[in-house]
């Protein structure tokens, strides 16, 4: 699924990586625990999280995750946007809960990792 479709389904907005709306993700993973995220080995992963801090971006960088949805109306700080920009990571802000975000994307065909 492409980033532009994710944004539409979640009625969300891109705050970093506006020009990369055709980037496609294969699978999604929802977690607020970064050590769980660091166990992933898949490519083209979408991370859905309610944890909005610099370590979320660093964790994505280490795990080669190129797209993050911040649920529960969490906002990316300017420092987070700058770090994501340096590492070609797309950031999306969404007002829905992690559960609703995951449910909508699952219903639309996004596959889970486990």
């Amino acid at each position, binding site marked *: 699924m492409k980033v532009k479709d994710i944004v539409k389904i979640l009625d969300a907005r891109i705050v970093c990586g506006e020009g990369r709306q055709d980037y496609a993700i294969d699978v999604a993973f929802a977690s607020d625990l970064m050590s769980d995220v660091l166990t992933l080995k898949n490519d083209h992963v979408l991370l859905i999280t309610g944890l909005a801090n610099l*370590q979320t971006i660093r964790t994505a960088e280490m795990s080669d995750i190129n797209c993050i949805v911040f649920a529960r109306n969490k906002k990316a700080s300017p420092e987070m946007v700058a770090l994501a920009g340096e590492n070609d990571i797309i950031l999306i802000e969404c007002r829905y809960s992690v559960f609703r975000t995951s449910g909508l994307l699952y219903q639309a065909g996004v596959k889970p990792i486990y």
Partner: protein
Amino acid sequence: MHVEYNIEGGDFTRAGYASSQIKKILKQSGVDMDIIRRTVVASYEAEVNIVAHAHGGAISMEVDENQIRIVLQDVGPGIEDIDKAMEEGYSTASCAVREMGFGAGMGLSNMKKNADMLRIESEPGKGTRVEILMGLGKEEILRSKK
């Protein structure tokens, strides 16, 4: 090749900077992407541990044609029982560390799963030394140069 970075204890805004630099260097060196990912996940978990638990420390990396060697040395409380610390789920992390998305007792086991060799030495009250070794077989180097 040898690089070294200082790590400030408690400074979560900088946690991961050294591992990020390490990742960039390994990418530029043409190391296999799977090896890079395993290396930086292990070094990042170790770096976060220093920020979370120690007063400060340093991380160094040496790369030659056969291996990547990363050593993290900190000044801090040390680990009283390394076997216990290796157990998944065991944690002594503070609330502040948990708020950053860590501290669930997975760091050391994540490091062990990703490193080809992991060595931890610790002296309670003084500090901890973590060594991460990653093999760079000739086949992998040849593959990455194609």
